[in-house]
Every structure is written in C-alpha cells, then in structure tokens.
C-alpha cells in the first residue's frame, strides 16, 4: 500500500501572526514549523502501517520553499519513509486554487492508494485543501475523519459532523482529511529524529511536475486580496471577579441571552 501524507510548513504558532501590509500576505520569515494538524495525519498513516497495512510506504508530500527542509525532517521523524518536496520560487503567492493544482501534480506522479491530509493549516485555517486536491485527482474524498479502519481495498470511516458522526465506506484510492481528535500523535523517537536526514528526500521543480509558471503563484491564483482590516472589537464583553457569586452571575447572563433556559 502506498500512502501520501500532505503536510504544510506554517509559522511557529506560539509567535504572533503578522500580515505584511505591502504584500498583504502572512509574514513567514520567522521560525517555521510543521503544521500541528498534520502530525495527526502522519500518526494515522503510521498506525495503518503498524496495523492493517503492514509494509505500507508513507511518503510525506509538501509544496513549500526550499528552506522548509527542517519541516520535512520533522515530518519524517514523525514516521514518514520518504519525502517529495515541490520547491520552486514560482510558487510564492499561490492561493488554494494554485496550491491544490501544484499538489495534485506532485501526487499524480505516483499511484497512491490513500492520500491523507490534516484537517486544516494552523496559519490560514482553510479546511478545504483535501477536497480541492481530491477534485483535481477525481478521487473520492472524506473530510473530518475521526476514526478509520482499513478493510481490503476500502476504508470504513467515522466522519465528524456538526450533529454527530457519519459512518461511511470509501473505496481506495481515496483522499481523506483527519480531524485532530482521531489520535494522539506520539513523540518522535530520538533515533527517528536523527534518522530523518538519512531518508530519501526528493526535491522537485515546477518543470519536474509538468507545470508552467503561470499555473501557480500569483498568476495561477484566483483570489486576490484587495484590502485588509481588523475585525470590529466586540464592545459588550463583561469581566467578572469571582467573589463567590461568579457562577450565579454567569448563569444569569446566559439565561438573559437565552443561551440556556
């Protein structure tokens, strides 16, 4: 079985997010790291390899600047067997439309049985990359997977929705995105961290995946940020000092707002 886990490099989530007023893009020049939601995706792939799909090969796939090599190593330390890294200056400024095109082009080079995404990126918080890539690859797609079981050539999944869970069966090859409730990613072991650098790293350019500069980057994007402004502050917040009656006050507040009856 061949599994691809698509991962993203994001700005260190403990640092404050900043947007460059000139480019209107998120500033990515500080410490960057592996998107934490993707650790759940890698962990789930590793569990498949340890369980129902022994010998499965896990490729970590990403579209990111060449400087992302330490993020690649992090993903490999987490359990990937090899990496496929599309790094090309022409990619800068890509939106979801352009990035999904690039990712799909990378993924199409290989016959993956299962392509796994994390539920969202902790920077842009979009949630839609898995669906966009699945559409381009014409593969079935299930998002927000909270549990899965491999059954021959199909996957039984529990999908988290607002009203509860859906139980679905999807035949492979397929694309899924896993929720962050699906598992508790393990800490990478020390030998795995050290060994990550020795695993096969494939770095590709746009030309390698048959894309032209105009397909991606700003030219290949369909969204254009015209202006940015801060959301209006919510003026009506109330701060309670607990003098022993805070619980009653909170209850009264919620009743007044008809949140509870």
């Amino acid at each position, binding site marked *: 079985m061949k599994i691809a886990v698509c991962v993203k490099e994001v700005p260190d989530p403990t640092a404050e997010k900043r947007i460059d007023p000139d480019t209107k893009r998120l500033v990515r020049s500080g410490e960057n790291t592996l998107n934490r939601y993707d650790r759940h995706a890698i962990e789930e792939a590793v569990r498949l390899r340890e369980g129902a799909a022994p010998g499965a090969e896990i490729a970590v796939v990403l579209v990111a600047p060449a400087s992302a090599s330490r993020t690649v190593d992090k993903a490999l330390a987490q359990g990937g067997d090899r990496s496929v890294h599309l790094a090309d200056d022409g990619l800068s400024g890509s939106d979801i439309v352009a990035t999904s095109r690039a990712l799909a082009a990378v993924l199409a080079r290989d016959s993956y049985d299962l392509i796994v995404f994390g539920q969202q990126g902790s920077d842009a918080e979009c949630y839609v990359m898995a669906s966009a890539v699945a559409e381009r690859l014409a593969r079935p797609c299930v998002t927000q997977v909270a549990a899965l079981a491999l059954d021959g050539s199909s996957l039984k999944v529990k999908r988290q929705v607002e009203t509860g869970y859906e139980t679905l069966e999807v035949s492979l090859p397929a694309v899924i995105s896993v929720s962050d409730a699906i598992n508790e990613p393990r800490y990478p*072991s*020390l030998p795995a961290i050290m060994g990550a650098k020795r695993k096969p790293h494939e770095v590709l350019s746009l030309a390698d995946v048959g894309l032209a500069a105009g397909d991606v980057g700003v030219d290949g994007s369909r969204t254009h940020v015209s202006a940015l402004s801060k959301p209006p502050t919510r003026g009506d917040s109330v701060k309670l000092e607990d003098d022993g009656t805070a619980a009653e006050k909170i209850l009264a507040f919620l009743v007044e707002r008809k949140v509870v009856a």
Partner: protein
Amino acid sequence: MSYRPPLEDVRFLLGDVLDFDGRVTGLPGQAESTLDAVLDVLAEAGTFCANELAPLNLPGDGAGATLGPDGVSTPAGFREAWRTLVAGGWPGLTCDPEYGGSGLPHTTQVVFEEFLCATNLSFATYLTLRHGAYHALRLHGSAEQRDRLLPLLASGRVAGTMCLTEAHAGTDLGLIRTRADPDEAGGYRVSGTKVFITAGDHDLTENIVHLVLARLPGAPSGTKGISLLIVPKIAADGKRNGVTCTSLEHKMGIRASATCVLTFEDAWGELVGEPHGGMRAMFTMMNAARLSVGIHGLGLADGAYQRAVRYARVRLQGRALGGAARPDLEADPIIVHPDVRRALLRVRSQVEAGRALALWTAIELDVAHRHDDPVVRAAADDLVALMTPILKAGLTELGWEATSTALGVFGGAGYIRETGIEQYVRDARIAPIYEGTNGIQALDLVGRKLPEGAGRLLRRFFHPADAWLERQRGNPTLAEFVDPTTRAIDTLRATTLWLGERGASDREEAGAAATDYLRLFFLTASCYMWARMAAAALDPQATCTPAFREAKLASGRFYIARVLPEAGALAREITAGKASVMGFPEAAF
C-alpha cells in the same frame, strides 16, 4: 505553554558564538551531530519537557515521593513520562551507540538537562543520576560489566544511584564505614547505612544499580581505603538484594525526588575497578556530574524568569513614573516600573551569560573526550577542570538568587503555593549543597585548580581570553563590551596573583578568600562571555534576527553596567585578607 525552551538562544550560542559545527561536528564519531541536527533533537526534547514534565511539577511537589511496604512510589504521572522518554530513546541521548545510545555530544545533554530542570527538577534527578552511573561504569567497569549493564542504563530500563554520604561522612568521605567483605563466589557482601541517596528507590524502572563507596577488609584509613561497588536492587537471580529504603527524608524542595536512607544488609555486590580505587573513580566523573548540578541552577533560574516576565506583563499596579504607559487600563502593567525591570534584567542577563559559560565548557568537555590529538584533549580537559567548580557554584548560587528575585516580582502571590514560583525557590536551594557544597567547590578552585601545574589551568582561561580581547581592540562598536571585560580580567589576574602569593604560604588565607574568589571568577568569565556574545550579535554573518540581536545587546549592557561592578567589591573583600574572618574569637560566636 508555560515554558518556552530557549532554543533561539541555544542556536545563537552554538551557531554564532561558540562555533559548534567547527569544534564538535568535526570530532571523531560526530559527523551526524551538525548544529541543525542537534537543534532538531533539542526542539523535540524541549516540547516534551514543556508539554509533559512542566504540568507534573507542582502536583509532584504536593504529592511528593512516598514510601510504602513495596518501596518508594513517585507521584502520579512520573511513570508515564518516564515510559515515554524510554520509548523515545532519550535516556541514551549521549550514550555510546555500541551500548544502544545515540552517541550525541555531551553539549546536547547539557541543553536537555537545562530544559528538564527548568520544567521539573525532581523528575530530572532520576534521569541524571542514572546518567552518572552510566559514566562511572563506562570509565571504570570491566568489559563484562560494561556489556552487561551499560545497555540497560542507556535505555533507561534500569536506573542508577550514587551512594557516598553516610550520617557522619558527607564532605569528608574519608570517614565512611560501610563495609564490603569478599564472599566465596568472588563477589562481596555489603553492609552499612547510606543517607540522603537521591533516587535510592522508586517505581520508574525494573531495577536500580547502586554505586556504593565502601571499605574492604584491611583497607587503609581515609580516602585511600575506599572502594567502588555495584549493588543491584534486584539480584541476578531475580530476588530482592539486601538493600532497602528504610526511610524517606522530608525536604524543603525537590519533594518528588526520593531522598532515601538506604540500609545495606549483607547485600550482594561486585567490585568496580581496583580495590581501594573508589575515590579516584569518583573523581574522573566529577566534572560532568558537577556541571550537571550547575545546570539545575541555570534551568530553575530561566524557568522562574519566564514566569516572572509573563506576570509582570499582566499584573496592573500603579502608574509608570514617567506618566501612564497604558491610559486605557486601570493601571499600568508592573513591567514599566524601574525596580521590576531591574529585577528581571538581573536574572536575565546572568542567565544568558550562565548559559553561554555552560555551553562553552560543555563543548570543551566534548573536545576533551573525543578529539584525536592528545595535546588538544589535554588543553580542553584543563579548561573544563578549571571551570567545573566555578560553574557548579556560580550557576547554583544564580539559581537561588534568581528564583528568589523572580518570586519578588509576584509580590504576595509569589508566596502562595498555587502560583508555582515558591516551589522554584525551594527546589533551587539543594543545588548549592549536593555534589560537593559550594564552599567545597571554592576550596577545590583555590586549593587544587589554581596551583595545578604552576597555574597551567589558569592560563587555559587567561591566554585565549587575552588574545580574543586583543583582536577586538580596534573595533569601536565593541568597545563598550571589550573595555570593561579587559579591566575585569585584569582585576581577576591581580587578585589571583595576590591569592597565589598569600595562599601558598597561608592556607587559611586561601580558605577565607575562596568563596568570594570563585564568585569573582564567575562574574568575570560571564563578562567575557558577554563580550563574545556581543561580538557575535554584531557580526553581519550572524543568523539571529534583528529583534534578538537588539535584546541580546541590551541585556549585555545591563550586565556590564549593573552586575559586573560587584567584581570590584569582591576583589576588595578578598584582598582585605583573613584577619577579620579568623580574628573573631571562637567562643564569642
């Protein structure tokens, strides 16, 4: 996250200041220990400490280690955390690959220990004692003992202890009475009582290897008659050996670290190294162990600093003296007040210098262990030997001062248990005591390290420092750091000469000066590190960010202006001589 591992500073120190790739990565067997690789490893270690160990710290202090019929239990969560560490191979971080370790340089262990101590010193003691046992056996065990025991210690499946102290024999180990009598099978039977044994019993591992100092029959008296033995908790036949934890101490701090009275009754043991060679064996592993205890102080100081800064940003009291800084709020955050800033900077500027000193020495330790040129090895070993007592005492005093200062930033809340900062103060007080009290470190410095080889060790510090300062002389942007450092080193040199002359003929004079002299050395060496850090931060090739560079230089300026001047007072105290110390009539105390 309550603790942010200081990875950016570590990267700056190793990469921009101390030339880690040049000094360490080129050493035999270290080709994979590039700066990037080491930082990747440390980033994961830091995440583990912050996410898993920090939350166990305060509850562990409350529950403490407890003694039941089956021995000692560690507080809730410790076993799971230990299992995670073992599963990840972390106990073997710097252990040799031939024994299942990852073989990384000792410098990595020093940083890892800082993270451990900053988040949970009690937990750290179980890990570091095991590390000490590993190194003692690696250096002094027979090939058979090494093959049998080192893989177990490296993996963390087995823990270790150091059983030196007895009720009447602490600093003066020549007084110990524990006996080891040969049995018919070539082993020994050990009997006696050891006190204050850290990690003497616990539920983290399947077995514990006690390293015990004891006397063989007919041994000469004093330290020349002490042998080193291994006594396992569980004997080779799977049965309990004759060693029991008969009591746990109730302590000021590190309450989750089991401090045990260990009673040995006819316990089976085996000799390590030569008969009567125990003290020598202990000495050879002392540098690493003492550096490790120094790191207790450094870690706690930084952990306390981080908490104090967070509090100072959100606690609103009073108005800035120069006019309201946050007129939109009821009052200004206390970080605007000069006295609060002074407190934070005192801690911060000393922590940064302390970390630089620790990593500088750790790199030299790696060179001393691994370089293939014996001349280079010997030079590095000299510097490590000189710096060891200075770091042990200097950093642990810093831990005590810094945690107390950080507590002060919290006002009354600091004194309250739930705030979590008073635990740091209590935990910090042990490090100046164990692994040789700081008073003994000072005597080691003036009594052994200064005279050794007619000042050979001293020259390993002064010569490179002088040469480095000379090279910076023409650089006007660096003068604010280089000039005070040059003066401080001159003061240290003059005081050292005074001490050398007086102390050689009058040992009381050396004894009366020792503690102040060690502090003077620590302050001066810290200042030298500040000059090196400033130079690195100003170097256009530096990889640090502009914000980091600005903060680094500002912190260094505080050190030069507000901490270094203590050196002048210390020099005067020292050269005032022993008269006022020894002249006081003993009966009048």
